[in-house]
């Protein structure tokens, strides 16, 4: 019986760095590290020389200086004496505002178009196919400009609402569509419980959140009863009461009233003004991305095996319930990952605001601030940092959701 011995240990030789696959990867990585270091050194050296030649340095002190420009569309207090950092904050909020709005409406458009494209009505499905093809194949920048042109060149000026024989009139006496923007009524509280309007609104939101939790409790109870007795109690009227009664009571207590926009002097005043650029960007991003989402929704629904629908029908479910209980929950798994990347695209495409003068982060920090201070490197780096953070956050949040709806196998 022979004894097993370890094979003779090979002595490490320098040539093994090239010829032995076990060590060759080390060589390659060393070369890559060297090349990377050289490239960084080369670019950094060029940067330092160029900056020295131009008499510049890298500094973020300019963010504290007064910006000296005005922003029309803003969510927080801001005037031309505010700092560049404040202007950037206004831009960040505007970017988030238009992205969130566009994500919501794009999803609505996309789901409607995607479902209608699968309709067995020939005309409707062809119409939706035309919508999808037209909007997918034309650059979003062109759509933004087209809608912006409608907002500025086709809409009537405030002047045309004036006089006895005015050529334009307000819709339902509540909404005014002008070339300076759309004016809608603004709700406010006559006898708010708090002095500040923000607190009053927070109270309303808190009430809604409370209703949501009460409703969830009611639904859970209903499910429990169903599991015990097999009959689900009707919660429709309870739901209506839980949602409406506290809300209506609160609004009545605080004296909700509407400030309707009215023509004063040369322009409308009162109400909420939604600027033309915001509408152009919002609507263009929604219909453009909606076309992409429609295709995802269609693919998701078509990916569900026809046997699933047939099995559900064989169980005696009605078409609406088949869609809600069988097809959609499965289709969502297919739809959601591309939906995430479409939301990311909306956020990134919202940077096209600069083309229509909507004051998002690209237009404030990357546009006016950059041009006024000449701090190109700092501004562009901050801009990239913001978008990178936003993108990574969205994909992280959506990935968590994606994991929660994932098919759970074994």
């Amino acid at each position, binding site marked *: 019986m022979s004894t097993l011995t370890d094979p003779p240990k090979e002595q490490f030789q320098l040539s093994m760095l090239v010829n032995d696959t076990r060590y060759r*990867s080390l060589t*390659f*990585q060393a070369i*890559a*590290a060297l090349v*990377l270091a050289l490239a960084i050194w080369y*670019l950094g050296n*060029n*940067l330092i*020389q*160029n*900056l020295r*030649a131009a008499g510049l340095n890298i500094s973020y002190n300019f963010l504290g200086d007064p910006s000296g420009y005005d922003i029309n569309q803003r969510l927080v207090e801001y005037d031309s004496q505010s700092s560049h950092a404040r202007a950037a904050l206004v831009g960040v909020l505007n970017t988030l505002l238009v992205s969130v709005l566009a994500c919501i409406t794009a999803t609505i458009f996309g789901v409607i178009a995607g479902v*209608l494209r699968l*309709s*067995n*009505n*020939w*005309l*409707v499905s062809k*119409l939706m196919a035309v919508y999808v*093809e*037209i909007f*997918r*194949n*034309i*650059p*979003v*920048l*062109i759509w933004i*400009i*087209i809608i912006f*042109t409608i907002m500025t*060149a086709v809409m009537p000026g405030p002047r045309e609402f004036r006089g006895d024989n005015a050529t334009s009139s307000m819709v339902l006496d509540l909404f005014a569509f002008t070339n300076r923007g759309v004016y809608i009524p603004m709700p406010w509280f006559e006898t708010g419980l708090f002095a500040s309007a923000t607190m009053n609104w927070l109270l309303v939101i808190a009430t809604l959140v409370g209703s949501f939790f009460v409703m969830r409790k009611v639904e859970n109870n209903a499910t429990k009863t169903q599991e015990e007795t097999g009959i689900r109690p009707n919660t429709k009227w309870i739901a209506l009461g839980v949602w409406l009664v506290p809300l209506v009571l609160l609004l009545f207590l605080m004296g909700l009233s509407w400030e309707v926009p009215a023509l004063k002097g040369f322009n409308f005043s009162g109400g909420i003004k939604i600027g033309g650029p915001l509408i152009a960007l919002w609507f263009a991003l929604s219909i453009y991305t909606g076309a992409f989402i429609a295709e995802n929704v269609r693919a998701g629904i078509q990916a569900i095996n026809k046997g699933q629908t047939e099995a559900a029908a064989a169980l005696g479910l009605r078409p609406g319930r088949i869609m809600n209980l069988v097809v959609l929950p499965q289709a969502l798994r297919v739809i959601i990952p591309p939906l995430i990347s479409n939301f990311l695209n909306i956020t*990134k*495409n919202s*940077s*096209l605001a*600069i*083309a229509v003068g909507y004051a998002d982060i*690209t237009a404030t920090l*990357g546009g006016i601030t*950059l041009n006024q201070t000449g701090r*190109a*490197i700092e501004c*562009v780096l901050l*801009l*990239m940092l913001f*978008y*990178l953070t936003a*993108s*990574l956050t969205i994909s992280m949040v959506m990935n968590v959701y994606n994991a929660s709806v994932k098919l759970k196998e074994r």
Partner: protein
Amino acid sequence: MSDTHAQTVAFVRETEIPPAPPPGRETGVYKWMRENLFSSIPNSVLTIVALALIYSLLSGTLPWLLNGVWNTSSLQECREVLDGQVGACFSVLTERWNQLLYGFKYPVEEYWRPNLALLLLLIALAPVLFFDLPRKLLAFTAVYPFIAFWLIWGGSILVPIVALLGFVAAGVVFQKYGKGSFAVGFFGGILAAIVVWNVGGFLIPEGASENAMLAAVPSRDLGGFMLNMMLGVTCVSLSVPLGIALALGRQSSMPLIKWICVVFIEFVRGVPLITLLFVASVMLSYFFPPDATVDLFLRVVIMITLFSSAYIAEVIRGGLAALPKGQYEAADSLGLDYPQAMRLIILPQALKISIPGIVNVAVGLFKDTTLVSVISMFDLLGMIRGPILASTEWNGVYWELLGFAAFLFFVVCYGISQYSQWLERRLATDHR
């Protein structure tokens, strides 16, 4: 037995009845409409709403389109011709046709050069797009970039020839040494190309472009739809090889190379193209040597190429991941080394899977070339928004111009996507 039958039945038909036509409501248009348009009440409502929508769209646009004016020289003149009627002033397209296509600075007498370049582009693309064509045509595809460069920018013919010679030298070295070791052939090829370019740079005499056969055109004079086409074609063709390299790098087992690729791809995919274009227009020049003047076109090409290569890398990574692991193992068990396995086994299959995705990225990239108008380059959209709409003659002709731009992009992008669907059917070799 047979005669009992005759007693119980009064009449037995012995000939076949000729087939009767189906009832009227089960045939033709009537049946089709009932099944496809009015199968239920909600469906009928949808149909009527859709018809109303189509009617309002057509009644709004058709008179405007059909009553268009094609041969006036200003908006005012056009309005006089229309005389209060609804109609489009398409004369802006005919009058500014050259500006829309070539920009406003490209010399008029040289328009044949981009036209010829476009024609040759179609010829060069043909063997790439359609596999049935003879493979020898690919030789022309390889030479095409240098011809196109010379045609569009003009100047000394020596520049593209030296550039071409560099690639030829690299190819020859790779052919000679690449058989033994891929790395030696690859890096040797790069070295050979650099040597040829440097030597060639010395040989090109100063001022060779002054009295060249084709007058030199600086790249800031490029514009119009030509600029969109050039950016699209150049960046897509440059970013495919770069994307393959990045995708392979991301799959690599070497942690350093993998992380370089991951960081690059995730960074580029996380920021909008417009910030990268800002980098190209205001920041990139800081990173070049102080005495180098790299023109804006080249800087934009660099940034768009980096941008789309990250997206293409992700598409190809999907293709690589879709291959069964057995393919990698089979390649290993045949004794192929990494470059051979990739070139002969893995990439041909992975690329086939990723073609639709790559075409999607290409269409998206082509649409995104309109973004260069934001950094004041005069592409088709830049021409429309800048010089044409700002001119006194055509101030206010929005719909004709924007509609024309939308139409051009639609034709190209829709064409590409139809090609991609055809190719997908063509390449479907699995039997389903």
